[in-house]
């Protein structure tokens, strides 16, 4: 696969993910909490979408529904392609080396030992962890662990990558580097990415489209297409300008809850 200087995701009309009138409630009767209500969302193949919202907007619930870890109460979730999910914590298995962590999905898929070893090393090199495969997860820094988790997600050979605030616990400098890293991976693999974050600038830095969710119940409040040329910087005027506009809209939503 070749890398072009200004990546444009394949603009084909095929949708990878489609949510139609999706609602999700937890609990029963008067104690029920409606996490999502009437969500309609389409994500195109190869698109990078960020879901942004305040607490209680059902961002993580949406990802669970798309990942098939949970079912909607009402509505329809259609997902074309295999999904991989990344969490805020790397969730690497401490009893395995970093290489074996990356190789586990391959092992479960029935790949031979030598081959999965080679493949795991390839994936680690792609996230700039070449030669670190023999270490234990606890010997890595937080940023390195998230990259190892990204390599493990890539090992699942999924077409859709779901990310639940994956960089939320990292310091700003590490996060900026991981944005560059993730963008490179996205460009070279053509993955469809749904990325949940509460960091509006991060959303403007990374995505093709920002979907703003309301809280309790979670509804789609607004959508912002992001047309800023790549590669982007998180501190560029365009990114900060868009982030300010999204933040204003988000605050207006939050104020409604204060009344």
């Amino acid at each position, binding site marked *: 696969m070749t*890398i*072009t*200087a*200004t990546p444009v995701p394949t603009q084909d009309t095929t949708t990878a993910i489609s949510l139609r009138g999706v609602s999700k409630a937890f609990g029963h009767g008067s104690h029920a909490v409606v996490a999502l209500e009437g969500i309609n969302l389409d994500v195109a193949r190869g698109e990078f979408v960020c879901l942004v919202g305040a607490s209680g907007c059902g961002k993580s619930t949406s990802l669970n529904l798309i*990942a098939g*870890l949970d079912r909607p109460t009402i509505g329809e979730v259609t997902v074309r392609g295999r999904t*991989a*999910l990344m*969490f805020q*914590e790397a*969730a*690497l*298995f*401490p*009893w*395995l080396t970093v290489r074996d962590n990356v190789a*586990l*999905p391959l*092992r*479960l*898929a029935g790949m031979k030992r030598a081959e999965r070893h080679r493949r795991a090393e390839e994936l680690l090199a792609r996230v*700039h962890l070449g030669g*670190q495969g023999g270490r*234990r*997860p*606890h*010997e*890595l*820094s*937080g*940023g*390195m662990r998230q990259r190892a988790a990204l390599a*493990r997600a890539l*090992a*699942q050979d999924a077409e859709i990558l779901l990310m639940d605030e994956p960089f939320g616990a990292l310091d700003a*400098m*590490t996060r900026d*580097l991981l944005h*560059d*890293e993730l963008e*490179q991976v996205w460009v070279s693999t053509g993955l469809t990415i749904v990325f949940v974050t509460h960091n509006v600038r991060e959303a403007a830095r990374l995505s093709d489209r920002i979907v703003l969710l309301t809280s309790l119940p979670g509804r789609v409040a607004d959508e912002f297409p992001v047309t800023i040329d790549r*590669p982007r910087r998180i501190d560029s005027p365009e990114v900060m300008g868009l982030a300010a506009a999204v933040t204003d809209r988000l605050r207006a939503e939050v104020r409604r809850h204060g009344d």
Partner: protein
Amino acid sequence: MATEVRTEKLEEQKLAEEIAGLDALEAHLGTHPSRARQIWSTAWPKLAAVAIALGVWQAVVWSGWKEDYVLPGPDQVLPALGDLLSTGKFWTAVGITMRRALAGYALALVIGSVIGLAVSRIRLLRSAVGSLITGLQTMPSIAWFPLAILLFGLTERAIMFVVVLGAAPSIANGLIAGVDHVPPLMVRAGRMVGAKGVRLYRHVILPAALPTYVAGLKQGWAFAWRSLMAGELLVIVANRPSIGDQLQFAREFSRADQMLALMIVILVIGIVVDTVFGRADVTIRRRWGLIDAAN
């Protein structure tokens, strides 16, 4: 286009260098003290404790609290221990006792693990026998001996029966607790990478439960060893010398020095086996990053 590609390559290289730089700054680098120093630093407090214990014991003897044929001091017991170690019968007894301990423990390991796994997986079984297992764990194993002797007579099997009953509940409980305390995030991550059903257990839940399971194994050993000593005092099998029956004979022949020497042997064997479990525990925790690498 050519320049664009070159810029892209440069950007990529820059990113790689920045990432490598940050990694080098953040990765933890542990320093290891020398091996001899490590051994000395863990050994001297133990040696000091032994010296103090011997000193207190000798002081009690010198105080004249009991006659020295009832409570001999280390000055008499240590030579008696030396004599004991040079007899063939003693080593036969140690051999028989250790064989019983290992066989009983191995059986308890299998039974405890199978029960533990079944109870942790099957909800109905848990509500049925979950608290019973804990109850068995707290029951003094010596209370089983009257029944064991009734069932099996004064035989090896009576001893085995009680050793297994002593050790298996701890092992089962260790496994159950380990499975219960697997972080849900690990299970989610395991499901996400494609581990389901039996393979989720094999690749995620059981490895994640290992530290607690090892703690259960260690406790199980302690119960097995206690049950075995109680059993060997009560169930004396003809022509089968064991540490327990030697202890009983020493008492019957009023050889307090031999009796105390045998008690030291029992204590030392317990400590040595416990150290093996302790090592396993430390190795696991170090691999997992639960303790500082320098410890």
